[in-house]
């Protein structure tokens, strides 16, 4: 299929539809408005439904309802709106309902700015709501990768009966680049999913109930099951790009748009003879622990964490694996200020040549 030029948000929306999304509820916020705008006309074309809710809380609750009815349901927002949806996301996870949630992230905290940032890492990976549950968190670096993740999000969500989160920076939501769209998935039969509360004609099973409320013993049992699921993710579902690590003396850690700036800088530095590589997590949770733990620390002189967040947030996860075997440097911007290729190159070079020690 020919590549076409598409805006990140719109490509994600189309990929979700092709991946089986048939319900969307959301509330406007920049920089993700192109997702609901696109789905408002696209979903009715495929027999789906689009609702602009009266609030974020209402929207995530509608996603809860649609998912309980066996429909592949999705919502999207940006930082402030995702915070409002946190309660509903926790309920989805508790009730073991699949859903696809996209955070097109902007500067924060608070209302912040409408410009791109990566300041929701901790929220996404550590506590996307109360009660200590986890979600699989994907962080694409290109529009194509965002398309591929959105297309398969419901497969993970339904396998685990747990919401899946895609964390993409506003830059990737707004950018237009070439993509190849996957074919439409056949979702016939999904309506009879194991959690569907609706009984269809001919179905002989007894009534089914879904609840986010459990007696203590059962709640503990469920949390133990969840812990096993997180371990299985760590074992089977980590996605990571390891770039030029073989002989690397300095290893850049970056995800999303930042990793693209870093990659270009690394190619330039390599051409100058500097041994720099990169670990780019694609799943932020499960975190690519082995990539960091398994580095050859007799060679590695430093880890350089680059994020659109001050202070850097992924650093804690990196530090747990590096275990003081190499120093961790960090730089970046936040609040909606983007880096450019020259700055990124200069900052990495400064560290590599010892100028920052």
């Amino acid at each position: 299929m020919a590549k076409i030029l598409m805006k990140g948000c719109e490509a994600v929306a189309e990929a979700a539809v092709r991946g089986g999304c048939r319900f969307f509820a959301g509330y406007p916020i920049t920089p993700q408005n192109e997702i609901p705008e696109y789905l408002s006309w696209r979903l009715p074309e495929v027999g789906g439904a689009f609702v602009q809710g009266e609030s974020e809380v209402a929207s995530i609750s509608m996603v809860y309802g649609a998912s309980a009815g066996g429909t592949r349901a999705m919502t999207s927002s940006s930082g402030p709106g995702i915070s409002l949806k946190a309660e509903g996301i926790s309920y989805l996870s508790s009730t073991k309902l699949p859903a696809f949630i996209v955070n097109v992230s902007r500067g924060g905290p608070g209302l912040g700015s409408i410009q791109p940032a990566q300041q929701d890492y901790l929220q996404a990976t550590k506590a996307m709501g109360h009660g200590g549950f986890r979600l699989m968190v994907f962080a694409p670096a290109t529009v194509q990768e965002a398309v591929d993740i959105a297309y398969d999000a419901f497969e993970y969500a339904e396998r685990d009966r747990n919401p899946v989160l895609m964390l993409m920076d506003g830059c990737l939501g707004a950018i237009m680049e070439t993509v190849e769209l996957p074919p439409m998935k056949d979702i016939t039969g999904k309506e009879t999913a194991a959690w569907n509360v609706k009984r269809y004609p001919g179905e002989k099973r007894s009534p089914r109930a879904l609840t986010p409320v459990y007696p203590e013993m059962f709640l503990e049992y469920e949390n133990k099951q969840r812990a096993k699921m997180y371990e299985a993710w760590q074992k089977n579902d980590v996605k990571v790009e390891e770039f030029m690590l073989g002989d690397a003396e300095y290893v850049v850690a970056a995800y999303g748009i930042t990793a693209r700036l870093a990659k270009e800088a690394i190619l330039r530095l390599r051409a100058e003879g500097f041994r720099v590589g990169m670990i780019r997590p694609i799943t932020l949770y499960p975190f690519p622990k082995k990539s960091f733990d398994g580095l050859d620390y007799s060679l590695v002189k430093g880890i350089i964490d680059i994020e659109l967040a001050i202070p850097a947030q992924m650093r804690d996860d990196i530090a747990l694996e590096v275990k003081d075997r190499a120093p961790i440097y960090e730089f970046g911007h936040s609040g909606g200020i983007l880096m450019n290729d020259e700055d990124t190159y200069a900052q990495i070079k400064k560290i590599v040549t010892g100028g920052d020690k």
Partner: protein
Amino acid sequence: MKTTVVVSGSGGQGIMSIGTMLAQTAVSDGREATFLPEYGPEQRGGSAKCTVVIDDREIISPLAKKCDVFIAMNEQGYKKFIADLKADGILVYNSSRVTSEIKRTDITAVPVPADDICTELGSMKCANIVMIGALTAVSDIVTKDGFASHIEEKFAAKNPGLFKTDIEALEKGAEYGKKINS
């Protein structure tokens, strides 16, 4: 070869249209392109900027500090980004609105009175197309014919009147660009 184009001006001047149209023309031509808009919350009147990167290969970083081509639609946009144009770069500026004296001597500067040309053509909507016309005469990032076929696809059926004006605007702009080249 990787070429970075920056377009700046104020909201409503068709800044984003120039960017998306350049990117789309390049993609239709079989090349890779990225388009990144940057603007504030305003619909009109706020400052607007976009960056287009065109390459024969996969584009790794779509964010560049320095550009090869700079299209300045107004004075404010010109002042803000002229320092980011590389030496030997091309500046195409709307001389109806950019009033500063162009001091840099290490670049090719192409003045185009885009607003005045629009007034002549009777449509204030085509200033951005005039600028692209001029660009096609001084750079090969997109060709005039390639761009014309893109706007034909986009507007010919939907708005034949606008399409006709746009083609005239493209030709007028190209004439101005050629003056610099000769």
